[in-house]
């Protein structure tokens, strides 16, 4: 039996790792994006008390390695009496960390936004949340699509760090298969192929948004 045959016989291990990575990625990408958008919304207009704490949080996250945050949640918090599973800690770390990055990307673009459009929406009687959801956010997404896409790929790659805090994702699958059968080369080639595939998928998705934006005259920022 060749090494590849051995791998094929345990394709279910790969598939479950792949599925777990996709689940981690999908769930935390959506939540992190919502969190980032919510932070930018909170930075809108007349909430000066929130500005400083949000700024500190966003900059703080951007100065930390992702793994140290995961360590903090999984290994550190139990000594403060907060205990959670590796999976939960992993998701929360991904959401908080990348939420801050998404917030920074959107905030940077918001700062260059033409005020006139906002005034036009105010003059038409839009409420703050409506205006943010319907006028501001769609444009921020169209303008920052390239940066958002890069961030999504970084998020995908950060899911692999969670193998270190024992989450059973894709890299964990390769690692356990290679130690069971001692065929690391083949196992990791398959897994890297999976990551590549998801990345290419993400790039296509961003291109689609790009076409949507180009039709409306939005340059890629």
């Amino acid at each position, binding site marked *: 039996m060749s090494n590849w045959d051995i791998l094929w016989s345990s394709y279910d291990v790969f598939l479950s790792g792949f599925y777990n990575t996709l689940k981690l990625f999908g769930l935390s990408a959506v939540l992190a994006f919502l969190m980032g958008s919510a932070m930018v919304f909170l930075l809108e207009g007349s909430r000066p008390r929130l500005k400083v704490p949000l700024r500190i949080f966003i900059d703080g996250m951007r100065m*930390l390695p992702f793994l140290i945050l995961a360590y903090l949640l999984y290994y*550190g918090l139990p000594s403060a009496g907060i205990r959670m599973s590796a999976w939960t800690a992993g998701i929360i770390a991904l959401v908080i960390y990348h939420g801050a990055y998404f917030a920074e990307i959107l905030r940077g673009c918001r700062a260059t936004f033409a005020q006139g459009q906002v005034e036009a929406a105010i003059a038409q009687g839009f409420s703050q949340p409506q205006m943010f959801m319907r006028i501001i956010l769609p444009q921020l997404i169209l303008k920052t699509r390239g940066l958002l896409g890069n961030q999504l*790929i970084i998020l995908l790659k950060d899911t692999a760090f969670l193998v270190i805090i024992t989450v059973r994702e894709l*890299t964990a699958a390769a690692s356990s298969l*290679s130690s069971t059968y001692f065929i690391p*080369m083949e196992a990791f080639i398959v897994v890297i192929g999976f990551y590549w595939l998801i990345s290419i998928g993400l790039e296509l998705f961003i291109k689609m948004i790009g076409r949507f934006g180009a039709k409306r005259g939005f340059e890629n920022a």
Partner: protein
Amino acid sequence: MDSSAWGLLIQGAWTTLWISGISIAIGVVMGLLIALLRVAKIPVLHQLLGVYISLARATPLVTLVLFIFLTAPTMGINLNRNVAGIIALTLNTTAFNAEIWRSAFNNFSKEQREAALAIGMTPWVYFRRIMLPQITITSLPGLVNEMSFLIKGSPAIAVIGVVDLTRVTNRISAVTYDPLPPILAAAVLYMLIISLLVWLQRLAERKASRLAV
């Protein structure tokens, strides 16, 4: 945390810094070479390098570190953990640096070449004296930014047992039974390192914007 814990932490920080430092140094130069090869558009090589860059950018550092460390022995190579870590970080950062250099090349004005050749410079002198200094300045902010990313990705080498600034917190808490203080202390040290790089990046940006005028 007592002084021996701090001592371990500083050792961890040092490991992170020297391993990342070597990878960054090699990565910046290799990135430049790959960018040059790609700008030259040599058939086959161009496509191969393109595939490398695309793969390296899509592969998580943790996965790459494990791949290199576990695969080397099967090919009869005995890799020390630190070397495996350096190779993985270098392969990763080189790909990103190559793209930063390449975009600087692509944005470089063609007129300067004509002006240089017209006054009798050889292409090599033109490259070394005119093009490279300017491209280095315009690339620097991106390169420094990528250095921050590499430091933030460097804890990946913990997965093969290198005791870096992240993994050392496990070692300390194995003795003290309280992981929270060393993790927080490590976080502060990372913030110091990254904020230094962010400051350097701002300096580089100022310099680059002066050149743009």
